[in-house]
């Protein structure tokens, strides 16, 4: 099997397009450049004019879409890194081998973009290292979030680095990092468990601001469990996109394992979403919040719970039973949207819910623009890496 993989990789390597052959003015490059050019002025304005120049944030609503989308959603969707590496390295699921590097790359870029987005969001970004070196504040949940994100980003960088080292031909350093793989995987799972949940724990600080249906002492558990479903779905979604746009870069093993990954991850996502929907109902029961379900916010909560958790859980199961890979992929996108909706609900829609609409937050154009700028930059970097480094194929010079 290994020989086959190496052979196909070698064949692939011979066929892989070299960077020199790629046209500079491809449709992707032109569209990405136009988006970046259109949104970059807002990014510059953020640092020259301050937060007030580009955001609708104020003292009542200090956290906007840069926290709700770029950070909370970004971290949840980057969970595929620890989910996949745990499945492969810790649980020994060999059939998911080809998903590991793309998942770690997505996780690494996801966390990198979270930190990049934080540079825009915090008032004085040059003070980001302060919690570690100047004023620790170790009793704050924010310290734990900051510490875990910083440490996990470092771990993801190290986990990703063998691919970059294979590209650069740094065999000796790569050998050392590869020996650390299991340690890094365990650290990654540990740090992810801590900070995925502590992002939910942050909102425990605001019981009077968050709507009772979304506020629960189980919030850390909700955030952690939903991040697993997000990670599993994101890997299926990313695999679908990669096969659509980068199949010419893939070796045979990546192509062959595509449906196995969709099937295995779809099955796991069905179970996780079923468990997640149950603990959400336990949360309503534990706080005796049933009466809120009959209000407008209650209906919105049911849209999220039934429409974006229970429905995809059931349809994932139907897809897995019927080996209907199209349905599994639709459910993956559906779940990703559900996680985005959940994080938006917690951080924006159900936050400050008691305020009159005139005092509620709605993002300014600059906030949308900078979010689009960051996401586009992420896609450009992802494309740069997968078209150059052995992410979607096995490098023929390395056999471990």
């Amino acid at each position, binding site marked *: 099997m290994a020989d086959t993989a190496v052979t196909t990789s070698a064949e692939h390597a011979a066929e892989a397009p070299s960077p020199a052959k790629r046209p500079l003015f491809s449709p992707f490059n032109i569209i990405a450049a136009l988006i970046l050019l259109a949104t970059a002025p807002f990014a510059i304005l953020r640092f020259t004019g301050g937060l007030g120049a580009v955001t609708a944030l104020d003292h009542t609503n200090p956290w906007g879409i840069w926290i709700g989308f770029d950070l909370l959603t970004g971290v949840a969707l980057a969970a595929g890194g620890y989910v996949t590496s745990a499945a492969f390295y810790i649980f020994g699921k060999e059939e998911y081998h080809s998903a590991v590097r793309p998942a770690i790359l997505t996780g690494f870029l996801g966390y990198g973009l979270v930190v990049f987005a934080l540079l825009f969001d915090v008032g004085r970004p040059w003070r980001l290292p302060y919690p570690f070196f100047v004023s620790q504040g170790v009793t704050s949940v924010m310290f734990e979030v900051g510490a875990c994100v910083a440490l996990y980003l470092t771990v993801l960088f190290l986990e990703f680095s063998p691919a970059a080292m294979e590209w650069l031909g740094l065999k000796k350093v790569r050998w050392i990092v590869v020996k650390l793989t299991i340690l890094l995987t365990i650290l990654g799972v540990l740090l992810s468990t801590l900070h995925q949940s502590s992002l939910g724990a942050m909102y425990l600080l605001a019981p009077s601001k968050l709507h009772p249906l979304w506020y629960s002492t189980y919030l850390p558990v909700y955030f952690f469990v939903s991040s697993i479903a997000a990670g599993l779905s994101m890997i299926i979604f990313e695999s679908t996109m990669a096969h659509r746009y980068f199949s010419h870069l893939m070796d045979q093993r990546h192509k062959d394992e595509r*449906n196995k990954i969709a099937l295995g991850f779809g*099955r796991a996502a*069905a*179970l996780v979403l*079923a*468990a997640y929907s*149950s603990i959400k*109902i*336990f949360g309503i*029961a*534990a*706080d*005796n919040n049933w009466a809120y379900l009959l209000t407008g916010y209650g209906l919105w909560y049911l849209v999220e719970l039934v429409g974006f958790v229970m429905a995809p859980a059931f349809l994932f*199961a139907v897809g*897995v*039973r*019927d*080996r*209907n*890979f*199209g349905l599994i992929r639709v459910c993956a996108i559906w779940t990703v949207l559900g996680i985005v909706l959940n994080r938006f609900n917690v951080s924006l829609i159900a936050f400050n819910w008691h305020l009159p609409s005139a005092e509620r937050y709605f993002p300014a154009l600059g906030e949308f623009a900078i979010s689009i700028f960051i996401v586009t930059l992420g896609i450009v970097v992802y494309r740069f890496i997968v078209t150059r480094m052995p992410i979607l194929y096995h490098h023929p010079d390395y056999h471990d």
Partner: protein
Amino acid sequence: MDGTIYTLQEFMMRTKGIVYILAIGFLIGFTAFWHFLFSREPREETDRD
């Protein structure tokens, strides 16, 4: 018995009681869901994409 809760004791009795009943329901439901998910044998020849 009008459902009004006056004390923390009553609140805990009610909410814990409901959670425990739900937990039993969840265990039964999850077992059924597991069976639904794993009951069908793999049929590679009928894969649909």
